């Protein structure tokens, strides 16, 4: 199975490229919500986490979510609360254009804090937990503008 990724920019005035996964996230507790996003595949992160901007647009109240364990995440220079969204389905598109649904038993949500100005620029991250648990390998060649997940 092969999931093509986008190879694209994330930052103004920064020419470097990143592997980005077009994905729809469907939280199990809120099956009527479908959240399309472009997730950064980040092998420096052991945890798949939904960005504040993506969770905020769903209108799922932070108060409805339990603190995750550990309770905080250090990301992009911020120390932010991390909450447990429970299980979720991640829907990707494979190389022939068919959708692929992958269940994940637990996914974290990054909270905000009063000192969190700028947290809206943090993207949703797919970490090594997702790659390992689902036996995906990541191929990323920025110079060839090629990236995909494969198993």
């Amino acid at each position, binding site marked *: 199975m092969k999931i093509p990724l986008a190879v694209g920019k994330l*930052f103004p*005035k920064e020419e470097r490229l990143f592997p980005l996964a077009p994905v*729809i996230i469907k939280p199990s507790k809120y099956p009527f919500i479908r959240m*399309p996003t472009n997730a*950064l595949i980040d092998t420096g*992160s052991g945890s798949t986490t939904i960005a504040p*901007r993506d969770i905020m*647009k769903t*209108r799922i109240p932070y108060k409805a979510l339990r603190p995750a364990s550990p309770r905080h995440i250090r990301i992009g220079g911020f120390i932010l609360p991390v909450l447990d969204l429970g299980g979720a389905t991640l829907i990707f598109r494979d190389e022939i254009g068919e959708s692929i649904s992958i269940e994940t038993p637990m996914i974290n949500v990054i909270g905000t804090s009063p000192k969190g100005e700028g947290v809206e620029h943090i*993207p949703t991250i797919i970490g090594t937990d997702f790659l390992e648990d689902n036996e995906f390998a990541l191929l990323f060649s920025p110079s060839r503008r090629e990236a995909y997940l494969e198993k």
Partner: protein
Amino acid sequence: MAVTETQLLEKGLRSSDWVQRNFDELAKKYEGKLIAVEDEEVIAASDTMEDLIRQIERKNKNPAETYVTSFPPSDSIWVF
């Protein structure tokens, strides 16, 4: 008629492709802001997510299913 998940994925792909094709121009215009994109058009832009959501809702769109991205300020290197 409800949009299927395949259609929603396609829509998101089109929006992200369009953002990447026009990245430098959009980044110059919207540096430091969040934007919402639909049908190769910026339908809302704001400094805050709350305001962006309100703008999307005023256009009778579903914010959860709208493609949102941002252009962080260029005065810092971001490392996740």
